[in-house]
């Protein structure tokens, strides 16, 4: 049963729709990339990013009333009610803290944050890559999951490489030697999958 109040706000702009559906954590701006691209052309990018953050906190309040009507709440009702309330309160605190933080960013920091949130691997290329390996088609969820963890993976490498760069007394931009040292370190921590070398027990 659709809630008329929700429908009205949704028809206003795709942007609010995208913002409403990213309540729980702040890193969830990747899926509504297409709707973001629409607003990008209209607003200045930093303002739209700030507005999305404001609407996130608004969406947080409406979500409390809306979820009880939606059929999806059947999944959530498995958790005890108190745990859900505490989780939502923690999320709202986090959302507010993020808002305060983002509102105090400098121009350069805003640029970088925007790149961090909006950059993503093209779904078509990832899908082609996976299908060329499996030989059969894969579902859309697989592509979404794979591009998501690939981005996290790239982030881990870049962060480690920046650590290496700082430790060696160099400055960004990162050089290949930093990247390779970062890969070496992550490999020793087993964060890079490697099935080429088989451990033979009892050689």
């Amino acid at each position: 049963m659709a809630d008329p109040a929700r429908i009205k706000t949704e028809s206003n702009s795709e942007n609010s729709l995208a913002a409403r559906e990213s309540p729980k954590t702040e890193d969830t701006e990747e899926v509504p990339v297409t709707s973001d691209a629409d607003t990008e052309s209209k607003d200045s990018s930093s303002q739209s990013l700030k507005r999305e953050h404001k609407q996130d906190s608004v969406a947080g309040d409406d979500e409390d009333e809306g979820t009880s009507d939606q059929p999806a709440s059947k999944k959530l009702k498995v958790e005890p009610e108190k745990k859900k309330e505490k989780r939502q309160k923690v999320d709202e605190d986090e959302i507010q803290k993020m808002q305060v933080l983002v509102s105090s960013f400098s121009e350069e920091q805003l640029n970088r944050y925007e790149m961090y949130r909006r950059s993503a691997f093209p779904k078509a290329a990832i899908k082609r890559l996976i299908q060329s390996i499996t030989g059969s088609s894969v579902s859309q969820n697989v592509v979404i999951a794979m591009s998501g963890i690939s981005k996290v993976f790239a982030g881990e490498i870049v962060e480690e490489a920046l650590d290496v760069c700082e430790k060696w007394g160099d400055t960004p931009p990162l050089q290949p030697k930093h990247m390779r040292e970062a890969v070496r370190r992550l490999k020793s921590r087993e964060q890079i999958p490697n099935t080429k070398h088989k451990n033979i027990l009892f050689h």
Partner: protein
Amino acid sequence: MAEEEDEAGFDEDLDDGAGGADGNHGKRKRLFSKELRCMMYGFGDDQNPYTESVDILEDLVIEFVTEMTHKAMSIGRQGRVQVEDIVFLIRKDPRKFARVKDLLTMNEELKRARKAFDEANYGS
């Protein structure tokens, strides 16, 4: 290894993901150059990262996707890649696990919202 060299020759349209990061991928076109540049800037690198670093990162990402795909094909339903397999493989890494859960949940919510939106439009 000889297979790689042969396929790299006429492989410009197909994206063959085989091979490690230290292999020479020769003539294969760069798939993610633009996106990786933005991503590296977002993660803390300079606004213009070195092309060699971007290439290294692209090779690493392609190797990562390849490894995950091969692993996912070997567990669960053989020969197919399903979301459950990916989630299972990622279970030990908290960041990636949380990220996948978030993305899939968000996708479900968006699909539901779009469906409700379309039905409302259709009704009125």
